[in-house]
């Protein structure tokens, strides 16, 4: 038998290093420490950022074939589909241009009224366009990863919208990537305004159905909510700019024995299948400072209760 065909180093008898059990104990203690500090304190965000930066080349490598397939699919799209899409876009443009013509006048009127009432002016927040790289594979977390990060000036807490409405909020920023928590994530809540009645409420992400849905909680059984009502951001949170569509009420269940109605909403934005998004700067910069929390606690936290801090 030729040399080099067997392991020439016999296993050491005495120097075997730590036993498997002690290694497991050390590793699991470290893992538990990491988990606790990740969920309770923001101590290890730098560790995460370093690992994410190290992982970026690998992620880039994996994304290349996927992006190539996507690009190829777009390239070979049939002419009919392209024409249909163009017609739909034209129709939408026409519908929007009618409204846009009224905007100039409305803006002028709005500015005058605001001056009259001495309210603060609203300026559209600066925005950054970003591409969605992938949806987090973990079926528990409803998150997207986008291709803009600290280097492009993204800040944690920024609202993320697509062409139709709000998609989510940036909850973690890495040097070159950012994590977006979708509005349908169970830990996410967003203050909304019912455009038909003008009532404010908070829409919570709902994962109970496993689908993309939101839920209006803590609204009395006789609250004036109807199917088809459009919910927009109310702007009271200082995070989302006011007036961006969020969801449409899909079903209202009123039960006699329950104090609150069960109201299910469907997000307006393409939360599940979005490929390009717009990251807005948080609207809180030009708002007056909040009153001290001891005076009167706001009913709802605008930001996700975990992770992101607006």
């Amino acid at each position: 038998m030729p040399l080099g065909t067997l392991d020439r180093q016999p296993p050491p008898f005495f120097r075997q290093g730590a036993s498997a059990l002690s290694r497991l104990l050390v590793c699991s203690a470290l893992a538990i420490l990491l988990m606790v500090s990740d969920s309770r304190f923001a101590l290890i965000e730098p560790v995460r950022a370093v690992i994410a930066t190290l992982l970026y080349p690998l992620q880039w490598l994996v994304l290349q074939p996927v992006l190539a397939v996507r690009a190829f699919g777009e390239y070979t799209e049939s002419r009919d589909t392209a024409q249909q899409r163009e017609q739909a876009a034209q129709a939408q443009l026409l519908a929007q241009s009618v409204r846009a013509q009224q905007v100039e006048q409305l803006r002028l009127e709005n500015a005058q009224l605001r001056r009259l009432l001495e309210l603060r002016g609203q300026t559209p927040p600066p925005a950054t366009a970003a591409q969605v790289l992938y949806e987090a594979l973990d079926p528990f977390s409803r998150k997207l990863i986008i291709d803009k990060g600290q280097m492009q000036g993204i800040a944690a807490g920024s609202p993320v919208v697509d062409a139709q409405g709000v998609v989510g909020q940036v909850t973690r920023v890495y040097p070159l990537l950012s994590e977006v928590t979708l509005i349908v994530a169970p830990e996410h809540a967003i203050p909304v305004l019912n455009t038909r009645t003008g009532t404010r409420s908070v829409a919570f992400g709902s994962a109970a159905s496993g689908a993309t849905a939101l839920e209006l909680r803590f609204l009395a059984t006789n609250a004036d909510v109807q199917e088809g009502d459009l919910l927009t951001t109310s702007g009271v949170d200082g995070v989302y700019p006011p007036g961006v569509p969020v969801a449409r009420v899909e079903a209202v269940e009123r039960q006699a024995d329950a104090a609150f109605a069960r109201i299910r909403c469907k997000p307006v934005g393409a939360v599940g299948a979005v490929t390009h998004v717009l990251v807005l700067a948080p609207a809180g910069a030009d708002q007056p400072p909040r009153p001290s929390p001891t005076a009167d606690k706001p009913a709802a936290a605008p930001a996700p209760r975990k992770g992101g801090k607006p």
Partner: protein
Amino acid sequence: MIMPRGQQLLLPANPLFIWGSLITALLATMLPLGPLPWLPDWLAITLVFWSVHQPRRVGIVAAFVFGLLVDVHQAALLGQHALAYSALTYFAITIHRRLLWFAPHHQAVQILPLFAATHLIIVLLRWIAGEQDPVLAWTAVFAPLLEALLWPVFSAVLLAPQRRAPDPDANRPL
């Protein structure tokens, strides 16, 4: 070395191949296919394979590091996969001497509880960490089953570079 009768004597494993296969499995795990609960965890299978066949090279610490990478990529709680993979490799190392006496499809039956336990650990950790209602898709049951079914395939593929061309003669029956 005591070996089961009829088992082929293997060439030494190439460290480059070991780490290359682990990184390839990591890349396969990172493919952006969207959240599919039934998708088998390629990295877990590869880690178990190498900790059964080369427990002195790939062990608990390597599993911990790969788990951290997966956690960061999946935007999950940091340390969740690290803990699950460490436990998985520990149990794989504890049973590795017994396991190698069986044929790959019999090994798969014995490995199945380990994979199931790994998925269970992750669900439990999410639950303890205060996830409101963890989405328990019933298709997630298929992930450990598929991983166990893939075990013979992984055994054949990952052991292929270590098999020698058989040229037995009168003096060398192996």
